[in-house]
């Protein structure tokens, strides 16, 4: 299958589905409170454009900052773990506890601690908690996966710990980290959305709160428009990270090899 077909075929399926959706809603006279037609969603989108873009920006901004913090923090902690077994033994269980506790359950407490007047910070903290663990776990594994013979060779040539880390362990961990980033990028967005549902909205109105408000007022078409924006945001994050992975790995890593069969 060539490249054009790979893009056109799914697009055609999407277009057909939208047409079928539009046709069915009209044919069976479905109430817009139950299921709005695509055209209705588009009208809601244009009518509430400024509000939706503001919400999109809020969700995007918090997701990206949370993701960056999760990556920086996760890698930093993984490096610390790789340098000291005792630190790893001491802290890893708590990282796991943070990971397995549902964010929805922590949200009200975090909201009280930080305050309703700084909801965007609440969302940020909760999203970081959600996105953090895959980075930590995979990078820790990656840092420990360096070829033992190469470690011996570095020792033979008198390499410092820093050189082993910088020139051997971190490059070894890079594919693991990039894989984790694709998971965490999505999780950061999910974290912001779930946190917003759980913590509500004071100072910040993201897409999740827009959906909550719209459904309360039975503006289902607006809710769908916000939902569509959330999906597009998730897809954009995924593609951006897939591109990053390609850019950093395609020259040397097995995952990027195109094989002819």
């Amino acid at each position, binding site marked *: 299958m060539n490249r054009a077909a790979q893009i056109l075929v799914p697009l055609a399926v999407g277009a057909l589905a939208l047409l079928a959706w539009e046709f069915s809603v009209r044919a069976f006279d479905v109430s817009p409170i139950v299921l709005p037609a695509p055209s209705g969603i588009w009208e809601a989108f244009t009518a509430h454009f400024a509000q939706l873009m503001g919400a999109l920006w809020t969700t995007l901004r918090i997701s990206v900052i949370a993701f960056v913090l999760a990556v920086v923090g996760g890698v930093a902690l993984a490096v610390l773990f790789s340098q000291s077994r005792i630190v790893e033994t001491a802290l890893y269980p708590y990282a796991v506890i943070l990971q397995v506790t549902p964010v929805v359950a922590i949200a009200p407490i975090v909201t009280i601690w930080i305050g309703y007047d700084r909801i965007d910070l609440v969302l940020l903290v909760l999203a970081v908690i959600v996105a953090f663990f895959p980075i930590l776990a995979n990078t820790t594994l990656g840092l420990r996966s360096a*070829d033992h*013979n*190469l470690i*011996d*060779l*570095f*020792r*033979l*040539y*008198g*390499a410092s710990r820093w*050189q082993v880390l910088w*020139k*051997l362990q971190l*490059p070894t961990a*890079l594919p693991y980290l990039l894989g984790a980033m694709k998971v965490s990028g999505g999780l950061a967005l999910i974290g912001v959305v779930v946190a917003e549902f759980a913590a509500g909205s004071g100072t910040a109105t993201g897409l999740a709160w827009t959906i909550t408000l719209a459904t309360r007022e039975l503006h289902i078409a607006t809710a769908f428009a916000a939902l569509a924006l959330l999906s597009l945001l998730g897809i954009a994050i995924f593609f951006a990270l897939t591109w990053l992975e390609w850019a950093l790995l395609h*020259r*040397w*890593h*097995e995952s990027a*090899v195109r094989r002819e069969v």
Partner: protein
Amino acid sequence: MLLQLSHLTKTFANGVSALGPVDLAVARGEFVSLVGPSGCGKSTALRVMAGLVSPSAGTVEFPGGRPEIGFVFQEPTLMPWATARENAQLALSLKGVARDEANARARAQLAAVGLSGFEDAYPRELSGGMKMRVSIARALAAQPKLLLLDEPFAALDEQTRGELNDDLIRLWREQNLTVVFVTHSVSESAYLSTRVVVMSQRPGRIVDDISFARAPQADASRRFTAEFTDNAKRISAALRGGAA
């Protein structure tokens, strides 16, 4: 004397007695092959020489001071994210040699192993034999006095193996190396070495120490001479005696 092993033994933490006691002296300029059955501790002996494994008892001494050591593993063990040149200059960049000089020396060694034009290739773009050549260039770029090789050609096809045997002899001559070469191949040791040290099954001890009258030449026709066959027979006989 470059290297002196005295009453060397190695017992691993799990209680396996891998080696020795072994006494072995290697003189400057020798090409010594360590031959023995699988698991006889010959790789362990090599790692002890390199200082990568500490002996349980006995000593490793370098009477003239510890020389620069190059090590080649059974697998090429290249860094996949680095080009052939970057791999070859590993030791130099770790030691803080200036970039231009490291670069030039890596290029020179890649040329010496026949890889001119492949400096910017990544390991995945190279064949098994070429990767092993990069690995040898990496070991030589640090300008070692002592080159240790741990069954480096075991995974290669016979043709490539023969070519690399000849290359190794050439490099040994041109760069005034002292080589300790671990192999389980009788013919390889007979072809390459000035001296073959035959080891017994685990825990490996030296059962025979055979020096050859003539220094090895990079000349494949030697493989069909009576002298070569006689040498190989002597090594085989020593191996069988050691295994009994």
